[in-house]
């Protein structure tokens, strides 16, 4: 039970960090908690981010989680929604640990 609990905590903090990064780019660096995201929110259509802002998100993810993301990993499907982005980061962290 203990183990699964720690995984749960780690996952939720990954999620929080990813949301915080999206929020930062969304507000162009102005600090705010004025928006919360659903996993189903699309980055392009719903949030209205553009491709260059999504690259800013990738760069911020690399810094926050101290990982290096290869260009080959930048698959469009991973950037579809807030949820798919979070999952992708979790997958990357999992791969890094192994």
């Amino acid at each position, binding site marked *: 039970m203990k183990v699964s609990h720690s995984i749960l905590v780690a996952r939720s903090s990954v999620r929080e960090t990813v949301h915080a990064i999206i929020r930062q780019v*969304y507000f162009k660096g102005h600090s705010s908690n004025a928006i919360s995201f659903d996993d189903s929110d699309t980055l392009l259509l719903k949030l209205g981010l553009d491709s260059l802002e999504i690259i800013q998100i990738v760069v911020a993810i690399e810094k926050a989680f101290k990982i290096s993301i290869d260009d080959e990993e*930048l698959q469009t499907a991973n950037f579809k929604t807030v949820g798919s982005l979070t999952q992708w980061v979790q997958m990357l962290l999992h791969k890094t640990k192994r």
Partner: protein
Amino acid sequence: MNALYRLFKDSCLKHPIRPAVREQDGAVIRYGRLEELASSAADWLTESGVTAGQHVALFAQNGIEFIIGYWAIQKVSAVAVLVPAFSKSWDLERIQEHCDIDHWLADFSRRSVLEDTFSIQTLAPRWLSSPLCLMHGCGNPVKANPQPIAVILPTSGTTGRLKGVTLDADSLVWNAQAYANDLHLSETEKALLLLPMTGAFAHTTQMLAHLFTGGELIFGPELFMPQQFAHLVQRTQPTITGLVPSLYRKILASLPKLAQVPLQRLVLAGEPIDQALVHQGRQQFPGIEIIKAYGLSEAGPRVTQISSAKGTAFDDTLGRPLLGARIKIVNDQGRSLAPGETGEICVASPSLMKGYYKDPEHTHAIMSRGWLRTGDIGQLTKEGFLIVLGRSKNLIIKSGYNVSPEEIEAFLNTIPGVREAMVFGRQNNVYGEGIIAHIVASKKGTLGGSDILSQCRARLAPIKVPDEIHLVDALPDNFNGKLVRKEVRAHWPMPDDREITLGRRGEKEA
């Protein structure tokens, strides 16, 4: 059926089994099948009440739905109003109102934006694997078109209104063909589309030009990142593509070398072109011919272009006018200037727009006796090559899109708590130019940058969202537009002149 559709149909009859469009997932539609799909969509439009001369807003991203919707609209001789795919409520409401939209034709992903904006259910017949949706607008039955037109390109206009560039079928055919002839395009061409077909660049010089010559259109991904360029080119094997310089700059920064690819030609247009960037590109991608081009939506769009195969004239100029087009340089009084003298660039061409929709005042301000005043400043060389030096009109060119500061100011002024706003453009290494907004709140301390951005993100197309928001105590006393804006841009103190970078990837640019 107009001249545009006739030419498209001729091409379909001539190349029935050649691929016309290719999606990212590899799905291909051949010319013969494309004509069938466009025809059945046209039947559906007719059954749904769309008639000749009505305005149909086409709201779709690059893809098969766009192409089918577009040709269906042309087949019924309606007018296609091309709506940028990431438009939001502010943009859509203004297009509806200003362009007298009778019907909205959207791809499936855009349905909810439409429904939220206009609170109406769309009709969604499934005649394709992913359907087009139709919604009836509240268009004005009396249209302000003095003559038949085929396409309206809504562009960012001044205070409270947008400008609809109206183009007829003959103008579009002329421009697409003059462009295609100049580059000797043929049916062997495979064109990678990375820019939206709602803009004149991709619409006319890619979509129309290649379909008329039997080539293949390859649609880039919905989300294109510069890092993906090499992979995309390897996978889709295009022979030609078109980019705006700011995007090209980022591709070069993310990609040290591009070797062994079938990509032969790359067309740069839509923004000022920095020769140092072109030079860098030729070093990095030595096998690729570069075509530098000049044009504007109002001119059809393409006016001049020049290939890197042309030697020294390529380094210094943007080339000579395309077939049928003429250029003159005029001074403040409208007098023609000699080669080497600097003035405003004016264009005459069979491909000029018919005018701004419902806006004779702005039309007459820039068009008279067959000449279009471009608002760009430049020179002609003795040999007739064009040099562009700058622009006099008040416009921000962000990633190749024209954004009018007045439009953004008008939007910002609708936000509760904003007393006044001033917007201008400033060079930035991400978008070419960024949008800077200075805002005075009605009550000091009650409004934050994030409050303003929330409103912008929710209601404005992403390209129009300001890149920097500065809350200030007051705007310059005599703030009343252009001149002041220019002065402020030059002198307003910017704390540490914040550079927006792309971090790791952007650093390679330095």
